């Protein structure tokens, strides 16, 4: 089982050897304990958050998921406005980000596999991924909100400045490095002989991309987009700062709203009643489950790719 186990030294009869074997047992026990403890930690995380939301689950049942009104004062808790907010922001940001992140993946994975341009753009994308979310939010408040406000005045909608569109734009910038790096890795796994065969038949670079590379890594790129979606719906700070924090059903992409993550960030410390706190924890439970599902599917596809 353990790859090192068979190689233990043959000095069984000397005192040194006995000591060594004892040492090995202790060492391996520590390794196993570490693994088991990590497993239990994840189980504990789930139990904690499930127990925390039990009060709200028992009180509201399925009405929690389908309710359209969230009003802590009259103790009405419906998740639907935030589900809608989360879906809108995630999908709009994915939609905006896709042309850029896929181009970036092709740029780094096909057109410029090495050299200065590759290093330069690769490093800047890494930097973009490293900027803390709260700074994205601050920058959005300072730079993007006035711009959107001007736009809203021009087309005649209430000029909040903050809202679903503003949050989605910043989210799109934030998930671009993430999607492009996964897609790039997948593109790099396309067998070189397939690509060369394409070129030797006289295909242009674009034809190789369209007819060989993209069909080959279709599922891998889908996994990248799925994991990017996972990033987008869980992102909290930048969205909380830019979405306008309104608990009503959003009417258009300009209206202020809340996502599941941002409502937790907004109300958790102010929740004085147990039911309110438990309802917020239940939103966390749904986010937790959703992220587990998305990541399981995503990493399953990527792993299958590595095997292929």
């Amino acid at each position, binding site marked *: 089982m353990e790859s090192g186990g068979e190689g233990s030294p043959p000095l069984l009869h000397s005192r040194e050897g006995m000591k060594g074997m004892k040492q090995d047992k202790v060492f391996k026990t520590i390794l196993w304990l570490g693994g088991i403890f990590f497993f239990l930690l994840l189980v504990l995380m789930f139990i904690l958050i499930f127990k925390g939301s039990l009060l709200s689950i028992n009180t509201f049942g399925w009405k929690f998921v389908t309710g359209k009104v969230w009003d802590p004062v009259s103790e009405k808790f419906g998740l639907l406005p935030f589900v809608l907010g989360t879906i809108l922001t995630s999908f709009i940001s994915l939609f905006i980000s896709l042309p850029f992140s896929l181009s970036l993946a092709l740029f780094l994975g096909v057109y410029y596999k090495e050299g200065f341009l590759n290093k330069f753009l690769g490093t800047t994308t890494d930097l973009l991924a490293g900027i803390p979310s709260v700074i994205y939010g601050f920058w959005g408040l300072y730079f993007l909100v006035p711009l959107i406000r001007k736009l809203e005045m021009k087309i005649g909608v209430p000029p909040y400045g903050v809202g679903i569109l503003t949050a989605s734009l910043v989210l799109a910038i934030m998930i671009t490095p993430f999607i492009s790096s996964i897609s790039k890795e997948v593109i790099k796994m396309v067998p070189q002989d397939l690509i060369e065969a394409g070129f030797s038949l006289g295909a242009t670079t*674009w034809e190789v991309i369209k007819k060989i590379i993209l069909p080959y890594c279709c599922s891998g790129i889908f996994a990248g987009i799925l994991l990017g979606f996972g990033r987008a719906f869980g992102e909290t700070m930048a969205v909380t700062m830019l979405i306008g924090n309104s608990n009503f059903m959003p009417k258009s992409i300009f209206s202020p709203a809340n996502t599941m993550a941002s409502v937790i960030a907004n109300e958790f410390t102010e929740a004085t009643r147990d039911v309110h706190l438990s309802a917020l924890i239940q939103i966390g439970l749904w986010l937790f489950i959703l992220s587990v599902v998305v990541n399981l599917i995503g990493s399953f596809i990527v792993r299958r790719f590595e095997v292929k």
Partner: protein
Amino acid sequence: MSIKGRILKDKLLRILVMFLSLFTLFPLFFILFTTMKNGISAINLEFFTNLPKPAGEEGGGILNSILGTLLLIVIAFLIAAPFGIVVGIFLAEVQNKFTKVLKILVNVLQGVPSIVIGIIGYLLVVKPMGGFSALSGGVALALMMLPVVIKNTEETLKLVPLHLKEASFSLGANYTRTMLKVILPSAINGVISGIVLGISRISGETAPLLFTAFGNPFLNINPLKPVDALPLLIFNYAMSPYEDWHRIAWGASFVLIVMVFFLNLITKLVEGKRWKTSY
């Protein structure tokens, strides 16, 4: 399609891909430029050595949140580094169904939204201990740092060539000695780069701290009391209506970005010296 048409199409699409790729540089430079422009003017000696002033008063510094961030990082490091290295070695050395499940769980933990980690930190530490504390914030950050440390440790250990292990065994060293004196030292750069990467990932996190470390306008290095942190300060000050607080928030953003980029740079430098099989 004629050959000329195909070549033209190829060129056009290459230009489109290049244009869209280079366009992603804009937000980066915009954000860096804005932060530098507004941030540098806020920074002076007083900025690093003073405590924040009450709302409405000019001036003040961010000493409390710098120290708070350092304290949180130390706590997270003390939990995540040893634990992560042990789990990393375990995953690299043992192959069975259990470790297969664990590998998936590491990915799952990495994908859990930061706000959910905050809730877990609250339920795990704040609620039983009866109050917000630096310790609970450190625990929450450790949960975010763990998967990074585990993955990097596992991956570097797998890169160490097998003949090193065989040579060590053939000299009569036992398994423990082989792992601790031969395998781990030769992979140490990857392990360290994993830890630094983990620290750079958590140092800008705000959401897990909102209801754990909570924030504190006073100086505190007691792990059982609430502390402020740079990202928390940026969030609170950016959302406030005071001009002077915005100025301080820009200064803090600049400090935070410099810190994160510096940590990323260290990761790259250390990683470049990873184990190489041929010499």
